């Protein structure tokens, strides 16, 4: 086999390998999604976020409108500070919108569900959702049930 043909094949092989890495990074791990959508950040404090993780979806009426960007503990209020990143095209969400943490399915991942409010003013970058509802923690629910039973 001629040197030229060998070089062409090796070039194709290396290109295919690099394409494999690119597919893994962009399509499988969703790196493309991060830079794809411009968005704005909204903060919300929760008493308990349960098993919510970063990159979890944020949805409104079941439609995905953004994702959880960052989760940290507020050292003063001891509440969970959740930064949501809402896609720019959903820029007309009322300021009195409430946020709650739900579970998709029985064993599925947890996500943040937004419930639209009635105000005309809309949320912008850096705003805060004040009405929040914590995740339902199964153990706590069972605990409450047991203490009621004892009464």
């Amino acid at each position, binding site marked *: 086999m001629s*040197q030229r043909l*060998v*070089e062409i*094949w*090796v070039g*194709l*092989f*290396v290109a*295919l*390998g*690099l*394409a*494999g*890495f690119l*597919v*893994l*990074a962009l*399509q*499988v*791990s*969703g*790196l493309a*999604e991060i830079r794809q959508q411009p968005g704005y950040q909204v903060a919300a404090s929760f008493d308990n976020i349960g098993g919510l993780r970063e*990159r*979890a*979806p944020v949805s409104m009426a079941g439609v*995905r409108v953004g994702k959880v960007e960052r989760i940290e503990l507020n050292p003063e209020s001891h509440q969970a500070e959740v930064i949501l990143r809402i896609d720019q095209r959903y820029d007309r969400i009322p300021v009195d919108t409430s946020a709650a943490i739900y579970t998709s*399915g*029985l*064993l*599925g*991942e947890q996500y943040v569900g937004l419930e639209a409010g009635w105000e005309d003013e809309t949320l912008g970058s850096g705003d805060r959702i004040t009405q929040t509802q914590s995740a339902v923690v199964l153990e706590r629910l069972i605990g409450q049930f047991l203490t009621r039973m004892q009464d």
Partner: protein
Amino acid sequence: MIGAIQGLGRRTLDGLRGLGEAVLLMLRILRAAPEVVRRPRLLIEQLYVVGVLSLVIILVSALFVGLVLGLQGYYTLVDFGAEDAVGTMVALTLVRELGPVVTALLFAGRAGSSLTAEVGLMKATEQLSSMEMMAVDPERRILAPRFFAALLAVPLLAAIFSAVGVFGGYLVSVGMIGIDAGAYWSNMQNAVTVQDDILNGAIKSVVFGFLAGWIALHKGYMATPTSSGVSRATTMGVVHTSLAVLGLDFLLTALMFG
């Protein structure tokens, strides 16, 4: 009694000597790295032999591994009503474990064995010694290009394997079973991260490429220069590479995903 102890001692010493020889060989190969970079023609030839010629088996195996993973994942997850997670399962299994490991095992059988046999036969027919006579360093000319070709080819093949496998899982779960394509990709993208999963998988495949090239060449270079010696070295090369890959994979998984 004394004989048994002596036998144990001899085996230990032989094992240590073999390990020492292998490490010295590796150091000599690594020292020839600048030479390989300066004259990449030999490396490209070897990349063709170990990489391009392994493509078909890697592509076919990856497709079928992906198909089976999708099917089995669905059968298990549907009992829990979590069949949307099949994409996550397929991708994590492939990227973290099966991609690097199965690629390395196939590579040991497809390319490693031929490296061992080639180098062993060169030694048996005294081609290596005649090169030394002509003041050509066989480590630079023969071993180094083959080693670096293996080191480069395995990560590339593993990436191709994982990507094709994920596509195979897609074919089965979306095309055949009818899971929503959006759920397949979005659950996968939520679970797989570049820095944890894909980078660690790539590190694994580099380590396995290093092992596969090293063991195959060492077995060939140290083969007894007879036809039975070469055949034995080829078998041992594949067996030892497979065992080393599987054992090290457990260790790496414990370190990376612990």
